[in-house]
């Protein structure tokens, strides 16, 4: 994900920020995600929830809950319709995202999206952070000082990126099978379902357990990390979570461009409702998936 460079904040003398730490009564807020990025996440998780729910019903079509639900919505036709509809929406979101990368990386020659501290591309620091973090888990070392995107966040990003390519391609191959058969061998259509469903299951199990806990449910963020919804993060949180990025921001004198207002109450409440709904649906789907696995 490219680094947001919002330019809306009012220019403030850099010295003020550097010399005056945040007043405890009036915490300062910094922008982490632009509106576009937040919208992308919203489209991503909404379509993903529907794709997961409908996909699971097809994958475990013999299970009682799949058959019950299919009956409720008048059968498979409806389920497949929503699956395909959300696939199209997600494909569109993916194309918009890739288009942005191409526009910034190739045409505007913004190399920071390919390497450097704000890039999504993994680097040596991520490897060190991974091992450092695990040493910290075991009480063998200090907590690593994370940059803008920690290694598990980069993994999330690339897992989704690769997942969308793989699931999307295999999905379209099945949807337009006769067309794809013009350049693919017939057995590739068999493989498409295996890949589509296995990769889909991986995505479902990963997002609804690992991503949920890593990002939202672990004690530091419990019950939900609001930053992906509001885009804003308090200075204290920022400093604690990603000290390297905070330090770099101060050193580069860019804090003024990122400072923003506190998230309005309506946005917080709206985000809570949407976020909790998504988490509850996700966890319910996780339980159904695991139960279907156990039931065989």
């Amino acid at each position, binding site marked *: 994900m490219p680094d947001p460079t919002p330019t809306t904040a009012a220019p403030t003398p850099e010295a003020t920020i550097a010399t005056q730490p945040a007043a405890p009564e009036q915490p300062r807020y910094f922008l982490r995600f632009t509106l576009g990025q937040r919208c992308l996440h919203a489209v991503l998780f909404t379509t993903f929830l529907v794709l997961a729910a409908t996909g699971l*019903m*097809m*994958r475990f*079509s*013999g299970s009682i809950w*799949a*058959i019950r639900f*299919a*009956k409720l919505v*008048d*059968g*498979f*036709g*409806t*389920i*497949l319709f929503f699956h395909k509809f959300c696939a199209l929406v997600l494909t569109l979101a993916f194309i918009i995202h890739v288009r942005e990368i191409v526009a910034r990386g190739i045409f505007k020659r913004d190399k920071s999206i390919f390497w450097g501290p704000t890039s999504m591309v993994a680097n040596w620091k991520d490897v060190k952070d991974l091992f450092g*973090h*695990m040493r*910290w*888990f*075991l*009480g063998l070392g200090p907590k690593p000082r994370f940059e803008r995107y920690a290694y*598990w966040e980069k993994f999330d990003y690339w*897992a989704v990126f690769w997942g969308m390519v793989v699931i999307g391609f295999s999905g379209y191959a*099945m949807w337009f*099978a*006769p*067309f794809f*058969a*013009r350049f*693919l*061998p*017939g*057995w590739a*259509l*068999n*493989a498409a*379902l*295996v*890949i589509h469903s*296995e*990769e889909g*299951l*991986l995505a479902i*199990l*990963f997002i609804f*357990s*690992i991503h949920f*806990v*890593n990002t939202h449910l*672990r*004690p*530091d*963020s*419990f019950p939900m990390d609001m930053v992906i919804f509001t885009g804003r993060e308090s200075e*204290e*949180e920022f400093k*604690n*979570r990603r000290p390297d990025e905070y330090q770099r921001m101060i050193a580069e004198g860019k804090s003024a461009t990122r400072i923003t207002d506190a998230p309005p109450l309506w946005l917080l409440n709206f985000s809570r409702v949407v976020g909790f709904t998504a988490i509850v649906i996700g966890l319910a789907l996780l339980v159904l998936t695991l139960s279907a696995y156990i039931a065989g």
Partner: protein
Amino acid sequence: MKTVSSFGLTRFASVLLLAAPGRPLRADTDCLSCHGDPTLQDTNGKSIGVSADKFHASIHGSLKCSDCHKDIHDYPHPDHPAAVQCETCHADEASAIAGSIHAKASTSVPGATGWKAHPCTGCHGNAHEIVTKTDPNSTVYPLNIPKTCGGCHGDPAMAKKFHLPNVYALYIDSIHGFALGKEGLLVAANCTSCHGSHKILSHTDPQSSTYRTNIPRTCGSCHVGINEQYQQGVHGKAVAAGNASAPVCTDCHTAHGIVEPTSADFRMQSTPICGSCHRDKFSTYRDTFHSQLGLLGGYTETARCWDCHRAHEVLPASDPNSPVNKANLIATCGRCHAGANASFVQYQPHANARNRKLNPALYYIRLFMNLLLTSVLTFFLLHTALWLIRSRFQQAKSKSPGGKNA
């Protein structure tokens, strides 16, 4: 009611007074002067009244009472005259019924004595009102037969008592029952079309029209075209060659609850029937999108066994006439998948991703995906679990309000 009704008793007494003892009965009018009263009952409470109009209109209307009630010549007659022997005239039917399941059941099944009391009227109804079977009022008129047989075979208590399937309800809702009962189609199969009438035999009897290997011929007596196709297919040939485990009509269509084969119900229920013999093919079919779609319902167009293999003229793939012969695949798949080409039909509708020898590419793809899934999840589950423990530990240690940022 166990005794003669008071009204009947009065009439009985008046006749006793009028009639001279030992006087021969001249004509039916003599009998009807008593028995013409429809409420007349014997000492057991059984109705012994005869409707003169209905009797004269019946197929036996030209007969005299004593033609059947041979032991009654004069009046007064014994309280309980001998049972009427229909076989005196209907010898063929009587001999047929004597060897039938009904006759056997009446002697071998305890409690089934009611039928033995009179085998004919059970189906043909009131002996004095029997009309020809082409008469719509006949109990054995085609449109009335299910109700007649259903009098016993539609009774759940009776079915339970004699361990019989309750077939009446199934039949009534079936395509045959619908055609007969709702559409009034005389040619639609009724009970006797398949089971016969007088000589009904158990389906375990090789002579029975419903004996397993006789079923194609029985159904084929109406469904001639389908039977010809069936006889050409592997199943028909196997049955003809004496393989009793090969499927006959009723294995797929059931016997009584036959539904429209193009209906959603039939399309939904019948794949496992093929699968009950073809287990390996069913299992690999279950792995495909065809099956996943099919199981959820509401989308019945998805390919079932017979859509590709045909229902009746099932032929091995090696047969050039088989729809699943390599030369015919484009046409067969193309029936649903417009634009199917030579590469498309290489798709394996029964691929087995668990079999390395049969489908190596698929096997390794599945193996890779499974390894990817388990390794990613295992690593991150461990990673997250450790993280959770550490975070809780850190939180407990710091106990500060800012502990959210542990």
